[in-house]
């Protein structure tokens, strides 16, 4: 039975938490009641652990577009983008995303995960290229490097000088150099100094890929992401994103001003060997994109909610990972504290995400609150009340506890 031995250590924890109904990794949304509400364990719960940043899951125009696509084109494409799975809707969405971002080319993938996998593995020749990755980059970027079989060098998180040093001492044998960062990092909600990274990468003749999965639609004057906020949309080489957060569908994309980005269609196995997004998925993503483009007040509402929640949690003395952002994480010293605090919030009618090392950037565990523009004042009141109770019940979550 040696095939299963590796599971044993984590299975003990997983099964014991499941047995008492307190496993954060086995939550079921029993009934979805709206963009920010669902029934969990029979109780109506405020959802603050989704990535529905712009509240588009129930956007009327998106639901109508998806229904029309279902009626018109059926339930699935039954094939990959490379073969029979490219419909006119896929091409239109690629043009719409490129137009929204002000970039010339866009390639749509089936998920955000496969978009990064496909970008890195499609661009890199392991015999002659190298990838440099921010220490806190998402698993899909590391998995993309593994799929590419590329030599992969990690630099310190959000530290352009650390990248500069590593680019500077690279063996001249490497022909192509790709640097991967994210716009907003999803664990702490901290953002990258993209402009500085552009300068360092280009000075060394490297290309820069920015994964804006969590920042698309959210950062920048017109919602293009942190690269827009930093004023370097025209300078980054590859922009990757997802439909599963701000656009509330599923799918991903790689956008670029380099015409060669189109060649990912035949160089990228994650493009070629998995089925394309269904017509309804493509239609709802396109309608949500149109909606957020026409209604900048949606992102403004998200920021108002984020600022209000961040201020309230700060006032409670909770130890927060970053300045106000659509992700607001409370740091806890141990995973035992995190499990207990996560369950405490759920029992108070609030669902957030929980993360423990090594899935977190530091040695601490965290509770991750993801803000939505669809959070109502009543939702926010409930969130604030639950976190207030948390601050009283868990002194270890407070700044004063951390300092002592």
């Amino acid at each position, binding site marked *: 039975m040696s095939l299963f031995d590796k599971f044993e250590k984590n299975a003990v924890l997983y099964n014991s938490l499941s047995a008492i109904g307190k496993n954060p990794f086995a939550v079921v949304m029993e009934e979805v009641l709206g963009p920010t509400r669902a029934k969990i364990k029979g109780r109506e719960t405020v959802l603050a652990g989704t990535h529905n940043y712009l509240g588009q899951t129930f956007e009327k125009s998106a639901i109508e577009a998806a229904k029309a696509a279902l009626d018109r084109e059926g339930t699935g494409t039954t094939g990959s983008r490379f073969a029979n799975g490219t419909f006119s809707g896929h091409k239109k969405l690629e043009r719409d995303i490129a137009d929204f971002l002000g970039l010339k080319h866009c390639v749509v993938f089936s998920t955000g995960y496969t978009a990064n996998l496909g970008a890195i593995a499609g661009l890199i020749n392991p015999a002659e290229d190298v990838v440099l*990755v921010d*220490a806190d980059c998402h698993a899909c970027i*590391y998995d993309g*490097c593994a799929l590419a079989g590329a*030599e*992969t*060098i*990690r630099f*310190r998180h959000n530290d352009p000088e*650390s990248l500069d*040093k*590593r680019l500077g*001492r*690279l*063996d001249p044998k490497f022909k192509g150099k790709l640097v991967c960062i994210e716009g907003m990092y999803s664990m702490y909600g901290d953002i990258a100094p993209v402009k500085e990274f552009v300068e360092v990468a280009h000075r060394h003749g490297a290309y820069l890929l920015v994964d804006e999965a969590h920042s698309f639609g959210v950062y920048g004057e017109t919602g293009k992401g942190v690269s827009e906020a930093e004023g370097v949309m025209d300078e980054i080489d590859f922009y990757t994103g997802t439909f599963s957060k701000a656009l509330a569908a599923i799918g991903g994309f790689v956008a670029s001003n380099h015409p060669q980005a189109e060649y990912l269609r035949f160089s990228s196995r994650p493009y070629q060997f998995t089925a394309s997004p269904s017509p309804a998925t493509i239609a709802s993503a396109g309608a949500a994109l149109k909606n957020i483009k026409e209604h900048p007040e949606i992102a403004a509402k998200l920021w108002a909610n984020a600022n209000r929640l961040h201020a309230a949690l700060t006032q409670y003395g909770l130890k927060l990972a970053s300045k106000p952002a659509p992700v607001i994480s409370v740091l806890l010293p141990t995973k035992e504290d995190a499990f207990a605090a996560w369950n405490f919030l759920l029992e108070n009618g609030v669902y957030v995400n929980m993360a423990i*090392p*090594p899935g977190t950037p530091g040695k601490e565990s965290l509770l991750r609150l993801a803000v939505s523009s669809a959070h109502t004042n009543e939702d926010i009141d409930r969130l604030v009340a639950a976190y207030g109770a948390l601050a009283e019940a868990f002194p270890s979550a407070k700044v004063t506890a951390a300092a002592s």
Partner: protein
Amino acid sequence: MAGVENSGIQADDDLVYRRICSLLEPLNQKGVKLTRDVDLVADLEVDSVSVLDIVMDIEDYYDISIPVNTISETKTIGQLVDAIHAIKGQQG
């Protein structure tokens, strides 16, 4: 450097080995006696990201770059030390 076992002549003089042991010591919660043969994950229960973080300290100290691929191929402290020596020889 309490708890660090210097196994053999090579290790005794090996500054890379000593540096790795001193970086591992704070993570050595079970108080395992550190030798070249200690498996980082199985014996010390250090997670893969912590190993990468330790390697980053080594990289900056010696001004070398150690690919993630190289680290994932090493299991024991000794293998990690040897991998760093090999790269120091090439880049240093």
